Structures are given as C-alpha cells and as structure tokens.
C-alpha cells in the first residue's frame, strides 16, 4: 500500500472542500472495500478523508411519507431498523443477503452504493483491465468470466456490480442525495450507476469531490408482496450469480403494478421498463412471469463460462415473482427456496 495523507472531515462542507480539486483524494467510511483495494494496489489514493464522524447516521421520515437514510448508517443498522423491517422488508432482506455480519457492521449505506466490482482481473494489477487502467484491455472477455455480466456489456468491460442492497434500492426507486462544490442535488437511482460503454472506469455519475449524504426511499415499500432471491455458489457470504428483488401491487390475482431488478447480471442493478409494463393488468401466474423473463433476457449475451446465467436468470425471475405473489419471500437464514 502506498503512503497517504490522513485527514478528518468536520462536516459535509469540510469533506467536500478537502476533496475539491484533488483527483487523488478518497473518502473513507466503513473502509471494507477501499482498504481491501488499497492493499491490492488497485486504489492508490494520496489523501484519505475520514468521514466517519459526520452526522449522517439518522433514519428519518420524509415529508412524503418515505424514509431518509443517512449515508453513514451501517448496513446492519439499516437492515435491523424497525421501520425498514416493517415497511421495506425487501431492503432489509437484500442487505442481510450480502457480505458477512462483521462486514455489515462496518459497511456504510453510501459506501455500499460505491462498491467496486469483484472481477478477478480488476483486482489483479498484473492483468489488463479497462476499469482499473483505461485502454489496457478487458481480460475477462476471453478469460474466466463465470461471475460476469450477461446484460448491458460492452467491448471494454463485462464486470458486474456486486451489491445486493442496490438491487432492492433500484426496485424501490430510491433517490440519492449528494453534496458537492456546486451545491446539493438528488439523483434518481436508475441514473446513479452507469453501464460500462467505452468508459468502464466510471461506475457512477457522481462528480469529482461529490459526497453521498443520504438515500431516500419513497413511501411505497411493497411490504406485502415482495422477495429478494439470491443464487450463489455458496449458501452464504458469496456474491450473487443472479439475484432478483421484486415488489408487486396486486388486486386479487391481477397485477396492478409490478417491479423487479436483477443483480449479478450487469454493470448496474438491471431494470427493464418494457418487462415491467408487460406485468401490468396481467394475472400473477407462471405464464405471465415467463413472458416477462423472456422480455428482460431478449438481448442477453453469455460468454465462455457464464452462459448458464441466462437460463438461471429466467428461472430466478419466474421464481422470485412467484414468491412475491404468494407472499412467501425468500428467507436469508433458511436457504430453502420455495
């Protein structure tokens, strides 16, 4: 790990000021991903700004009846917050599906949004990786790509976004509050993360020196008909091969509104407006669910080791929509899939 200057931020404005104009500065909160990457020499900040003392640890109601989650709320505190468990159980479930309890005790809400991919080549500085070093090529396209993306890939990058929490936030249509040198702004969740395109080095649309201050949840948490289904190589503490967050609004057997987001399949949590539109007004049954799964996966592309994910994703979508419709959400402790 290279040497760095350590600094503490006193408030949000101070954090922004300390980072402004310094492309080699990084904020640190939980540190669970940044320190790992610094040990591997993937991240090489010259200045590390400790934001852990900023007053961003509250979970509060918004005027619109939603929740505002401070960026420094730890993952366990988020998942175990009574209002999150009661009103946004899909979010609590997704958070508990990710990482280990030690990591969730450290990791922050804002940091979870900013996790980097776990692509082996991104971590291995001896190999080419356009995300780590633009222009050095993608080693995964012709390499070991079992964990990689099947949707929204580019010639430059086939990495996936690793977060579970973000899959639920995408489905819930959260908003990201940020502060920067030019003031505050709110970014809709769908516009926060990027597809790789020709610039995979940029994971998000955050500007330089901008800091996440909060995640806002809208009032509808789909607390009745929901699930977070995650399929992985181990039963716990492993990244998703495919995951699905679902929220349904049902009128009897008919779907008034249905939303779902996929994890483990793309550079960002994946939603498909056309597929969700195809749920509206339809019966909540396997025929409907299979049809929308086919819509989502119409342009899916597999590589040498991950083509299985296309079938897996189709089955996961159908199973997750079924779980949500039947009010049998996936348990994150008993791993039985019903």
């Amino acid at each position: 790990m290279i040497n760095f200057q350590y600094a503490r931020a006193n408030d949000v404005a101070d954090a922004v000021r300390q980072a402004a104009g310094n492309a080699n500065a990084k904020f640190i909160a939980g540190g669970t991903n940044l320190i790992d990457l610094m040990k591997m020499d993937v991240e090489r900040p010259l200045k590390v700004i400790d934001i852990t003392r900023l007053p961003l640890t509250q979970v509060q109601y918004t005027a619109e009846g939603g929740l505002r989650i401070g960026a420094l709320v730890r993952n366990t505190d988020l998942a175990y917050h009574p209002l999150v468990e009661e009103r946004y159980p899909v979010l609590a479930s997704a958070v508990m599906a990710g990482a280990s309890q030690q990591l969730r005790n450290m990791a922050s809400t804002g940091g979870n949004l900013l996790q980097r991919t776990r692509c082996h080549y991104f971590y291995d500085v001896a190999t080419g990786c356009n995300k780590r070093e633009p222009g050095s090529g993608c080693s995964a396209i012709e390499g070991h790509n079992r964990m990689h993306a099947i949707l929204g890939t580019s010639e430059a990058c086939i990495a996936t976004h690793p977060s579970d929490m973000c899959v639920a936030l995408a489905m819930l249509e959260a908003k990201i509050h940020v502060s920067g040198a030019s003031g505050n702004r709110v970014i809709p969740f769908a516009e926060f993360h990027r597809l790789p395109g020709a610039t995979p080095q940029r994971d998000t649309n955050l500007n330089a020196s901008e800091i996440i201050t909060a995640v806002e949840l809208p009032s509808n948490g789909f607390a009745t008909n929901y699930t977070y289904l995650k399929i992985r190589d181990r039963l716990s503490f492993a990244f998703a091969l495919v995951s699905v967050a679902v929220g349904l609004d049902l009128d009897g057997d008919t779907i008034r509104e249905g939303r779902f987001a996929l994890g483990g399949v793309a550079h960002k949590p994946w939603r498909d407006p056309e597929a969700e539109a195809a749920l509206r007004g339809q019966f909540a049954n396997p025929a409907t669910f299979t049809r929308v799964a086919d819509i989502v996966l119409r342009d899916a592309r597999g590589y040498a080791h991950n083509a299985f994910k296309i079938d897996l994703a189709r089955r996961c979508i159908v199973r997750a929509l079924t779980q949500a419709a039947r009010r049998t959400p996936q348990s994150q402790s008993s791993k039985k899939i019903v």
Partner: protein
Amino acid sequence: MPEEVSLSLTVNGTLHTLKLDARTTLLDLLREHLDLTGTKKGCDQGQCGACTVLVDSRRVNSCLTFAVMYDGAQVITIEGLASDGALHPLQQAFIDHDAFQCGYCTPGQICSAAGLIAEGRARTADEIRELMSGNICRCGAYANIVAAIEQVMGKS
C-alpha cells in the same frame, strides 16, 4: 516518508496512546504494537474472520480498518473475554464441544459468537450458521462450533 498519526484507544480495559504509520490496521496495531497476538491474521482481506474483534461492542474484521479511524474506541479481543481467571462461557463451551481442531480460527470464532449473542438476532441453528458465515474454519469444525454457541445461548 510514511504519514504518522496519533491515536488513543482502549483495548481490554487499558488505554493506549500511540503514534503510528497511518496505514496500520487495527489488526496490526493489536498484534505488532500491543503484542496481543490472540487475534489472528488469516486472509487479511475480510474474507476469513480470523481477525474478528469487538469494537464498541460490535464484531468487525480488524484487518479491514485503519486503526486511526477508531481513535477513542473501546476494543475487546480474545484476551479480554475471560474475567478474574475464569473462562468466558463461550471459551468453556468451545472446549466442551471440541469446537476446533487446529485452533487458528478459534479467537475469531469466539469473538464473532460473542457479537452474535449480543446482537440477539439468532434463535435457530440456521440463523447461527448464517450469522457466523463470516468465520471460516478450514478444519471443518462447524457442527461443533454451532453446538458450542447453542449451549451458551441456552444458558443466557
């Protein structure tokens, strides 16, 4: 030149004030600067749990921290669990159930289990297994580790 930072933190009830390279992890502070070698370095990447300690009563991976971020914190390591010469109930339960073979992961397992019990979220064996998944045991003593934790939960 490495950036030097000053910090104070309480480890197992004793206040320490140190000057350190800013890159020092809490794990390295414990092992290299305070000679508390009960906390183990396994993967050094947050994947194995051997470095688990309790910071302000919460279990964390001490390898994935910069010690300076924990200025002012209260840290409990495996050395701080026993009191007045008596083993912590988890230490006794791990012996009773033969919940280890080589023992390298054991300090992390026990600190993690102490955190698990304090959280109060695990009620079933499935829930213990899930919430202990951040602690790897290469000897495969998992069945006995779960039994040891159940024994202590049953008492408390």
